[in-house]
């Protein structure tokens, strides 16, 4: 009799493991498959053993709006939370909003939700902050492979190659990380020596709306303060759409939904032109970001009285910015034989003092 009881306990142990396995296998087999671009993460994070830390836009509450129920709800560590994802034309899924109420099942092909837990409700903009985790933030790789992955993702000052995670999501939002792939394009941000700060007069003129053009930062215009390089890392040619004044690229605050800044109206606003640019394997496209040009100016979000200005002139606000390439809103190219690459390229973040995160 006692042997039977022991056997039952052993069977229970095996059953627990079997439950873990079959639960995940069921999600992989029947769950909705989505691909999500990972966000840059500080390479100084120690990875324990043989796994790599991943971060997604949905790990930060600042990345998207929140729809709490009730509105006064304050996320508390350990609370269940749901990130609603919607597909983009590139095939990747992007974060739409956060909610604390479980949506109806993942039956829709257009939106899915992923279930997670709150880690902290403080608003962060740094790489290593996690407001919420969804169970797909670590990738186990074979011994030694983690370093290669970290290097390919990009270290401080290096080429950033986005890792795109392939995730299967079950009906209740449980996610299983199944695989990953690399974006075929990489982006490199460089802050040059000509990146200077602004003085108090320039700062004052920016916030009060002075038209004095002499108030712009006095920089050597032959060397732009910021440079971007987009490189084709694949073995096939890639065509991107980059109309007008590099209108495929934007200067965005890192804390997109909680920033005091927004992009000012400029020559790219409403531009729907097509200017294909083909990158052969290994070829790079270099772009100068002259922050003093109105093309890259920002304006305060809630203050209509301020004029657009160079980000460096708003030193009373300390924020991080990124240069982002987003596929312009043209899905059908004029020449169908060379479809445009669909996706996002996100550079490293930098602040108004030229410090790269």
């Amino acid at each position, binding site marked *: 009799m*006692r*042997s039977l*009881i*022991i*056997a*039952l*306990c*052993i069977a*229970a*142990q*095996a059953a*627990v*493991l*079997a439950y*873990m*396995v079959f639960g*995940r296998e069921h999600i992989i087999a029947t769950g909705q498959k989505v691909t999500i671009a990972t966000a840059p993460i500080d390479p100084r994070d120690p990875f324990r053993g043989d*796994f790599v830390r991943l971060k997604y836009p949905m790990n930060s509450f600042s990345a998207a709006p929140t729809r709490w129920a009730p509105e006064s709800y304050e996320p508390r*560590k*350990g609370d269940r939370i749901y990130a609603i994802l919607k597909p983009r034309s590139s095939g990747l899924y992007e974060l739409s909003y956060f909610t604390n109420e479980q949506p109806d099942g993942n039956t829709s092909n257009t939106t899915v939700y992923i279930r997670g*837990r709150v880690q902290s409700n403080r608003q962060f903009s740094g790489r290593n902050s996690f407001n919420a*985790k969804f*169970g*797909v*933030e*670590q*990738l*186990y790789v*074979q*011994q030694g*492979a983690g370093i290669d992955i970290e290097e390919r993702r990009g270290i401080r000052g290096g080429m950033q190659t986005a890792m795109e995670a392939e995730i299967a999501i079950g009906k209740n939002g449980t996610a*299983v*990380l199944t695989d990953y792939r690399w974006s075929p394009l990489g982006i490199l941000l460089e802050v040059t020596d000509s990146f200077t700060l602004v003085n108090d007069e320039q700062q004052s003129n920016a916030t009060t709306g002075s038209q004095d053009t002499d108030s712009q930062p006095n920089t050597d215009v032959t060397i732009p303060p910021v440079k971007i390089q987009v490189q084709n890392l694949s073995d096939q040619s890639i065509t991107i759409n980059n109309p007008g004044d590099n209108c495929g690229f934007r200067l965005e605050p890192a804390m997109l939904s909680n920033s005091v800044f927004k992009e000012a109206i400029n020559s790219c606003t409403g531009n729907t032109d097509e200017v294909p640019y083909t990158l052969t394997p290994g070829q790079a496209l270099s772009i100068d970001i002259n922050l003093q040009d109105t093309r890259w100016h920002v304006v305060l979000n809630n203050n209509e009285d301020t004029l657009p200005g160079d980000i460096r002139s708003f030193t009373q606000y300390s924020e991080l910015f990124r240069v982002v390439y987003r596929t312009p809103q043209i899905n059908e190219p004029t020449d169908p034989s060379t479809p445009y690459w669909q996706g996002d390229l996100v550079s490293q973040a930098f602040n108004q003092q030229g410090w790269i995160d």
Partner: protein
Amino acid sequence: MSRNTVWLRSEIQTWVQEGVIDENTAKIIASRYSDTHESSWGLFLLTAVGAIIFGLGVILFFAYNWADLPKFAKLALIFLSLLIAHATALIIRLRQPQNRNLIEGFHVVGTMLFGAGIWLVAQIYNIDEHYPTAFVIWGIGALALAWAIPSVIQGLIASLLLTVWGTSELVDFDNLHIASAALIMLGILPLAWIQRSRVLLLVALVFSLGLLLLNTGIYINSIIVFYMLGSLSMLLIASAYVAIHSAFPRSADVLRSVGVAAYGLCLFTMTFLTIDLYTYIVQPTQPDDVTLFAIKVQWGFLLATVLVWCVLFFRGMQSKKAVDIPSTKSAQHCLILVSAIVLSLQAAGLFASNIQLLAMIYNAILASHCVLLIIRGTDNLAWRQVTIGCITLAILVYVRFNDLFDSLLLRSLVFLLIGAMLFLIGHLYAKRKVQRQTDA
């Protein structure tokens, strides 16, 4: 077979030969003191540690070849190794049930592989969820086997895992977590009692009380923890007197040891009381509902402690059938009762205007305990008691060096007194030893 058992067996033979006892009585005595796990503890521990290290070796072997294995090969390895380890133990149990160490060893390997299996499956599927859940599942797996076999080592593993679970929930996730302490108290303490295992009792007691106090201190209020710790320690000492007459009399040692250690710690802490420090140990004046409940529980413990020690002390004084308790022990019981009363009055705030008196009372109680311990230890030639008493007294004097004695003359006098006293104690101890040998 332990040394005590060997000695007893040989003595029993001698008594039978000399006609002191008959064969029947010899058998009864021999069976009363048969070897348990604790008497073969060394061999048992060796087997268990060997099993754990072997299990870790298997895990490392998996890790070395992990990258080259297909997913289902990895899963098959995990399940097979778990089942093989436990099945081997079951087969040995059926064929050679007397080989308990080997049975326990293989079950320990199986439990270790169960834990490894949880982490390895998480690794295969890149699971990054609430990690304390893994510890509770592992712990419950060990606990189930601890009852099923039954097994002390499985109980120890379960105690450790459940403690890690509770601590990580509390510290890492700020969750008030009584469940872990409750699971240890309800799941492991009874097992320790049934198995008559002092080690398991000690571990379960320390872990469960530690978790309870940690939860209360971090989540509710640290002052309440202090009063609860003080009263619990005295209750544990009292429970030792009850345990002596229970089916597990040896548990009294554990209960008394844990109780005395916690009681001594509380007393020693209170000897440092000053006016500035007193503000930190005042009860919260406007408690929320949870804190209010905790305060009520605290008062329940305090009053129970006073009541229990009143009964123990006065019953000991009046009972004619009681074992001849040395007068030093009666005096120490009186001191514990006084401590309980003083602690309660302190919690009620009655010493708020006279902190120095309170501190002096605690110093006097602790010093008295030390002296009584020394006297009893010298009388009984119990060198541990003498040593503990002397060291504690010396530490007390040392820490009081600065804050109680301003005058250099006083300090020198105190040191001379303590030094002379220790010298005298040593002399008395040696004299008593010689006298005992002569009497024998």
